[in-house]
């Protein structure tokens, strides 16, 4: 345990390293939406040397939710009379013609829940309704969704199912590795899956640091990252060891692997990525809403004006999109990146460079 004076010194040191960095130009991709949001909220970008560029990757689960998935959910609600249970962020994501929010105005029954376990409770209390939970998310959210389903099965519920669009981070790391010099890996994902993937990427020449989510943790990870980057050799450094251990969370992974298997998955704006998702195994077909209600044949079309794909791949910044701040705002999102506060377009809109407050000791 260090004393308070040392604590401030540590933070000051990280800030100084990032401000004075004069090594080779480095593009750092924060893959996770929570990092995107916190980096803006804490004003981290303003502290960085001009030689450091932060780009946002595809790790906000709402932003990469495919148009077809939203269309499927709307069809479940309007054509099949299902009750949709979902995390709140998904309600405003545009489908081909409308969002779930608009469908609600047309009679769709939508229940916003904080956890998939609440959706099971709702199904238990409303046995006359077919409740479908919209299972999106990465390695951090998938275990809760599997747990919810396993509880529903234990309760003999036949009116609960999942519409899955679960995704896995390693596929995103592989797909985006040429867009970045250095990854800021999300700590909570690696608390589940461990660090092996990061070590493996080093062998492919891909560098990264895994970091936590407070201002202090983000700055520390970035400072260590640029210092290592300067040395010119691919590396991985765990900057969040109190949370991220080598092996991850075996119990969570065992439950997911028992109920789900890897599949190819559509990423909004990016396309089909091989082995980048998880779907229910065929032994759980009775709880797979896509099979239970036969949703085959639904193919969504994204709005051609939206440049989310390029934003998510670090090719453009949100303000380079012609819709940004005009046709597309958080109140009227054209694309998914403007919906959730974890989305890059929304973060730029809400916090933009000029309005982001400087990082002070109180904010970390």
């Amino acid at each position, binding site marked *: 345990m260090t004393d308070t004076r040392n604590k401030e010194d540590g933070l000051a040191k990280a800030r100084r390293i990032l401000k004075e960095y004069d090594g080779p130009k480095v593009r750092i991709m924060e893959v996770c939406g929570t990092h995107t949001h916190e980096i803006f909220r804490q004003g981290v970008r303003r502290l960085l040397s001009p030689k450091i560029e932060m780009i946002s990757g595809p790790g906000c689960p709402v932003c990469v939710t495919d148009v077809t998935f939203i269309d499927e959910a709307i069809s479940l609600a309007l054509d099949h009379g299902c009750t949709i249970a979902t995390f709140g962020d998904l309600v405003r994501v545009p489908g081909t013609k409308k969002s779930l929010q608009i469908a609600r105005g047309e009679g769709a029954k939508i229940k916003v829940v904080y*956890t998939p376990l609440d959706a099971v409770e709702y199904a238990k209390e409303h046995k006359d309704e077919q409740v479908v939970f919209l299972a999106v*998310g990465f390695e951090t959210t998938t275990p*809760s969704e599997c747990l919810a389903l396993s509880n529903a099965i234990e309760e003999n519920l036949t009116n609960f199912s999942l519409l899955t669009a679960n995704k896995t981070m390693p596929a995103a790391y592989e797909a985006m590795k040429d867009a970045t010099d250095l990854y800021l890996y999300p700590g909570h994902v690696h608390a589940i899956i461990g660090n092996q993937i990061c070590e493996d990427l080093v062998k492919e020449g891909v560098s990264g640091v895994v970091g936590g989510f407070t201002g202090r943790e983000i700055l520390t990870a970035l*400072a260590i990252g640029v210092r290592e980057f300067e040395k010119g050799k691919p590396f991985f450094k765990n900057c969040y060891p109190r949370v991220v251990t080598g092996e991850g*969370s075996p119990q969570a992974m065992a439950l997911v692997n028992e109920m789900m298997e890897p599949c190819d998955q559509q990423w909004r704006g990016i396309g089909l990525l091989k082995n980048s998702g998880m779907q229910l195994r065929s032994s759980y077909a009775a709880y797979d809403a896509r099979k239970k209600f036969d949703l085959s044949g639904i193919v969504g079309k994204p709005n051609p004006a939206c440049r989310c794909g390029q934003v998510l791949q670090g090719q453009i910044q949100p303000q380079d999109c012609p819709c940004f701040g005009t046709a597309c705002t958080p109140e009227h999102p054209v694309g998914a990146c403007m919906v959730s506060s974890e989305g890059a377009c929304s973060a730029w809109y809400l916090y933009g460079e000029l309005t982001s407050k400087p990082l002070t000791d109180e904010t970390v």
Partner: protein
Amino acid sequence: MCVGLSAKVVSLKDGMAIVDASGAKRSVSAQLLSNLNPGDYVMVHAGTAIAKITDDDTDETDSLLEEL
């Protein structure tokens, strides 16, 4: 929806845990983690404790920086 939080287990009952996340108490599922005890630290995500973590020692960042 993606925000995880670290929290300290206060009590456990019937597969649920009362956790303290920076002073805010909430009830989360503890079904995914066996051998949890009051006083343990966990990472909570979407209403479920998904991983056991070492502790909430925020001084960790300083020791990491000392190596630079």
